[in-house]
């Protein structure tokens, strides 16, 4: 009952014509920011922060605008994943696996509507979870120390073997490549730079957005040039835009399961939306009756990561609001916004500033509904993108990639690095090595290494420390199970076929 009263308070703060207008503007901008390669939710929100100051918005209005941009970007990321095979941001990475094949089969609009609905389910249920569970879940962060985090990241890597390639060794090579790239930069545990060759730009390591845009978007450009515009991956068949009710109903339980997985991945500080969408996809594939169809345009393979990453976006708000620990890059930026507005997140925020917390939650619910309404009819507009001839579309994508990456740190070095990744992506595709594990290696490798190193410092190098708590042991068992199970199951299941793109 108290929750409902609080929620009413939240809506009374957030539901004025002005804030509603802000929510609509934010959702629209967010969707576009998410859809543009190179501009992810975190830099999208970061770019817009100064605008909230310029407009002189008060705390609640600023929060409404920023959260709707945040959620909008989470929705938008899927669009370029599905239509162009270029993830709009890092959590949308997994959506390329089945979304793009669906688009090639002429089911682009189905994939977009389905993923839009999945995003809504994930984000909506995660917001409900945030309302009900936030105070309880705050304690979960206290249970995760270095050993537990290490086991968690290990679990993610162990399921990589089942990724989208018929050749496990190639997945492993790709993941190792990513891990190697993750080692570049300042070593947190010794404070020493590694593989930087005295270059200050490399001190912070390689930004995964640079890697994503390079490996996907720029590599695509090279292929386009090589084939003189023929046989390009772009340019898919179009059919009538309808709402695929059957597909949505079929994926219902997938969405629910993925939401739960994504939400908990989001709640853990440091894991974030990418891990959420990855784990949701792998879990879905692991329990599916027809795992061989994944990676070839299975609608459930689109629904799972989208529900997962949007749920993780909601889950990531739990540690941010209750502990002041951001669960993802974007929540780190939102945290910054809160601090600038003189709101200090922490264990007492819910009690001290109910109007801020509940206003935020109400604005999340509002922006979610706005996004669903906006995304289903807008699908038509986005699908028209495909009717633009590739020789117009591709230079546009290239331009946006360069602008987006330059906006990250304002240095041309990142652009060179991005082109370098493009060359790498070109050769990897020629060798039929999947690029997704490279990104996951970069994304998770650093955190996995840091957790291991911290565990070793705390235990004086005693490896038994890694198995010292029930949570850690449970995660280890799941990790080993996830690694070994596919080896035995492969005999039972049909051999998956090659994915050529």
């Amino acid at each position: 009952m108290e929750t409902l009263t609080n929620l009413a308070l939240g809506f009374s703060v957030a539901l004025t014509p002005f804030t509603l207008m802000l929510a609509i503007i934010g959702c629209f901008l967010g969707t576009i920011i998410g859809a543009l390669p190179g501009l992810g939710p975190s830099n999208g929100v970061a770019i817009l922060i100064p605008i909230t100051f310029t407009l002189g918005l008060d705390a609640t209005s600023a929060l409404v605008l920023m959260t709707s941009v945040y959620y909008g970007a989470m929705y938008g990321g899927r669009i370029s994943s599905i239509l162009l095979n270029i993830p709009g941001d890092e959590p949308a990475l997994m959506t390329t696996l089945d979304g793009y094949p669906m688009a090639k089969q002429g089911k682009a609009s189905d994939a977009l509507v389905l993923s839009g609905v999945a995003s809504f389910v994930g984000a909506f249920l995660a917001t409900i979870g945030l309302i009900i569970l936030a105070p309880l879940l705050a304690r979960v962060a206290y249970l995760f120390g270095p050993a537990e985090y290490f086991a968690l990241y290990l679990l993610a890597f162990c399921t990589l073997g089942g990724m989208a390639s018929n050749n496990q060794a190639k997945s492993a090579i790709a993941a190792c490549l990513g891990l190697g790239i993750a080692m570049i930069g300042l070593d947190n545990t010794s404070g020493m730079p590694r593989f930087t060759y005295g270059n200050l730009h490399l001190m912070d390591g390689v930004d995964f957005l640079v890697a994503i845009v390079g490996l996907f978007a720029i590599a695509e450009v090279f292929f386009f040039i090589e084939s003189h515009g023929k046989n390009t991956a772009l340019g898919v068949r179009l059919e009538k835009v309808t709402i695929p009710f059957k597909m949505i109903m079929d994926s219902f339980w997938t969405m629910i399961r993925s939401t739960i997985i994504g939400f908990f991945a989001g709640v853990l500080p440091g894991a974030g939306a990418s891990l959420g969408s990855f784990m949701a996809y792998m879990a879905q594939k692991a329990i599916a009756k027809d795992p061989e169809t994944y990676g070839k345009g299975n609608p459930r393979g689109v629904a799972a990561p989208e529900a997962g990453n949007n749920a993780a976006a909601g889950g990531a708000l739990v540690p941010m609001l209750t502990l002041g620990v951001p669960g993802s890059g974007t929540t780190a930026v939102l945290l910054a916004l809160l601090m600038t507005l003189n709101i200090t997140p922490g264990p007492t925020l819910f009690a001290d500033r109910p109007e801020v917390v509940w206003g935020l939650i109400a604005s999340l619910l509002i922006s979610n509904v706005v996004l669903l309404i906006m995304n289903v009819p807008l699908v038509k507009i986005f699908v028209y993108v495909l009717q633009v001839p590739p020789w117009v579309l591709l230079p546009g994508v290239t331009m946006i990639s360069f602008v987006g990456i330059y906006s990250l740190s304002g240095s041309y070095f990142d652009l060179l690095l991005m082109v370098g990744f493009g060359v790498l992506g070109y050769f990897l595709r020629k060798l039929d090595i999947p690029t997704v594990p490279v990104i996951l290696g970069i994304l998770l490798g650093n955190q996995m290494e840091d957790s291991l190193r911290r565990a070793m410092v705390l235990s004086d190098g005693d490896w038994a420390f890694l198995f010292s708590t029930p949570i850690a042991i449970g995660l280890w068992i799941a990790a080993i199970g996830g690694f070994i199970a596919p080896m035995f199951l492969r005999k039972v299941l049909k051999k998956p076929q090659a994915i050529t793109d």
Partner: protein
Amino acid sequence: MKLIKKTALGAILSIGMFSTAYAAECIAPANPGGGWDFTCRQIGKIMYDIKAVDKPIQVTNMAGAGGGLAYSTVVNERNNDEDLIIAASSATTTRLAQNAYGGATADQVRFVGAIGADPGVIVVAADSELQNLTDLVDAIKANPGSVAFAGGSAVGGFDHLKPLMILQRAGFTDITKVKYIGVDGGADAITQTIGGFTQAMTGDMSEIVGFLKSGDIRVLAVLTEDRVPGFEDIPTAKEQGFDVVAVNWRGLYIPKGVSDEVFNTWADRLAKVAASDEWKQAMVDNGLAPFTKVGGDFQSYVDGLVAEVRQLSKDIGVIQ
């Protein structure tokens, strides 16, 4: 597609137009959200509000190499820019002292001043057996491995150095034995400490305010000269017999190549901000303690700090 492109172009153009309306620029050498970003945004805003500058100050985020990218950009490319200020803190001088900015030295820029400081704190979980700083130091003297610290900076960073300074004053010289893990920010360090994975947290006052109210933690000491206004029940390290003052000051530096006149202009503006009610309120809201050193006075403070940190870093083996 036309629609998307137009909107994207519009968004980019409008961001571009914002920048033309600004006079001076403040570089925050980190992504939005950290202390440097706060420094630029608050000081920039107040300077404009109190009419110390006649146009709003534009904030640019230039993350990279823990501030090193911004530092080398200023030294190499914008050495004569009179309309440029850069946010700095103890982390800046710590890294300069440890030669972590690729060979750059502290005398390649001019430190204008600091107008507020985040006091260093040593914190334990509320259920910890350690009641005061003496307990902590005794526990480490008895068994250096028994207390692990968590902090928001990397190994060798300012958070790491704080407990080491205390231990050195207490006559404990085997400081390389002290366990420290660098996690992603102060809040994360507290989480690890409340969770029992580390025994103590070393950080800044602003990072612990929320947890202090909820009663999850106990502050063993604050590393300031006097007790901090608003937190009068927290004892200083000094009154417990450990003469350590370690604050994370918030300030600015400007390029080396500007005239003394420009240096003094920025120092005056900064002093005006320090005296303003808006800044006093911002300090209270963010857990900052008053700490005003502006102009030549500040430059000599920075030089002393760099020398001290360099020696300590040599002792723990972070630098040769």
